[in-house]
């Protein structure tokens, strides 16, 4: 009788270990995958920037500094390597420089009316958005992965699954951290 109970308990424990292990591995893969999503979008942004710079260079003779800042930030971000924190910092710089360029471009009506520039700007802003949403997803998935491996009793098999705390993509840039203004008055925005 005692033997049977022992075996039953052993089987239950083993099944739980397998389940918890597989759960952790699934979360780990999701985290890695979410990170790859960000990576794809970052590459896309790096590819788009030279196009934009070449297109606007002619019309923006006087804004050499703004353009140079974008180019520098891009090469820094591409050289990057390193962990989440370094990538986040470099890409944050690039986002800031691009944002400034877009603001300056508003002053050039010729540029704004050009179909080519409009398309490029849409491509870049969708890429910016995709980076932001991919980051949002990555942080969500990474947080649940981190929570799972720290919580009892899953933390007992965390070592077995070689689970490590995934670093979150913190927003370094002050301008980016600020919550975007939400228009509560809901006046008709210009379509």
């Amino acid at each position, binding site marked *: 009788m005692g033997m049977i109970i022992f075996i039953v308990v052993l089987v239950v424990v083993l099944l739980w270990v397998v389940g918890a292990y597989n759960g952790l591995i699934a979360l780990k893969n999701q985290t890695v995958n*979410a990170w790859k*999503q960000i990576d794809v*979008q970052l590459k896309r942004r790096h590819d788009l920037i030279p196009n934009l710079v070449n297109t606007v260079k002619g019309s923006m003779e006087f804004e050499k500094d703004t353009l140079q800042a974008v180019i520098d930030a891009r090469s820094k971000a591409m050289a990057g390597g390193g962990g989440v924190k370094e990538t986040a910092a470099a890409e944050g710089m690039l986002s800031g420089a691009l944002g400034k360029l877009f603001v300056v471009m508003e002053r050039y009506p010729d540029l704004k009316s050009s*179909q080519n520039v*409009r*398309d490029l700007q*849409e*491509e870049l*802003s*969708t890429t910016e*958005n*995709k980076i932001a*949403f*991919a980051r*949002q*997803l990555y942080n969500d*998935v990474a947080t649940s992965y981190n929570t799972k491996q720290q919580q009892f009793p899953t933390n007992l098999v965390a070592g077995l699954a070689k689970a490590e705390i995934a670093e979150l993509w913190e927003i370094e840039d002050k301008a980016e951290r600020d*919550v*975007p203004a*939400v*228009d*509560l008055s*809901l006046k*008709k*925005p*210009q*379509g």
Partner: protein
Amino acid sequence: MTAGPNLFEQQARNRRLTVAWLLLFILFFAWLGFGGDLALYLAAASRTEGQVAYRFPWIGLVVTTIAAITAWVSWRKGPQQVLWSTGARELTAPQTFEEKQLVNVVEEMAIAAGLPRPRVYVIDDPDPNAFATGRDASTACIAVTTGLLAAVNREELQGVIAHEMGHVRNLDVRLMTLIASLVGVIVVLSNGMGRMLRGGNWLRGGKGKASGPLAAAALVVFVLWVITLILAPFISRIMAMAVSRDREYLADATGAELTRNPAALASALEKIETHEAPTTHIKEGAAHLCIADPLGRDVNLKEGRLADLLATHPPMVMRITRLKGMAFQQLKAAGQLPAT
């Protein structure tokens, strides 16, 4: 309500409601199928002094078989049929700036939801509207009218697409396709059995005299069954509408969770609402899928018992108010954080 329902509470509440409605649908279906059997069983029992002569519920089984086949076909073909009936064309190679932007926004929302990108369709109709259909995330389709593309700005479009992506992520597309096929089956059954009943002499016949409480019970059950059979198409539509209404609130909430920008969806809804003209390309069959009632019915604007029964969508004012409430909470939460 001082604080107002937050996002997760709303999601949990809506999920419970959906389960309840689905159970009700199944019960209703069972009654349609086996209610007639119950009446015949009671009638048979009353004639044979308690001895059971009617053992095999053949009405129920035949009905179930027909229903299963019909439901399966409309389950597989439903989404394509809906798209076809609205004259939607798929955007495989976007040409104009608006089309490219639409595809980009859908891609953004798919990333935010962590799902594969749904197929994108455009309907040539000047009235702003949008809907999602499909069976799951991998077969999902999102369709918008050209009127919507013209009426809203990028942020608002993002809000609308996020709402539709919410329908995909919450598996509303599956639920609504399922319910649409169930409603279709019930309508077919109601018509078919109504015709059968007119031809037959159902409760009489056989040997022995029908008398006693059992015979009375048989009659009551039979009359109830026939009445529900006649009203079935109407009742099932009301049930479908109820499910649809709840899912609209949930999709609004999920959309806000994806974009973290409830105000944009609220202002998009306001713009959609000001276009009172009905969406001519979207027929009644797809009405419950849309972000706003394409038929422009007045019931959707009112609150109250009758409006609650007949509308496919919750009142726009309520949806906008809830979204603005979320936007306010978001601001408040952001304000309470220490500024570092």
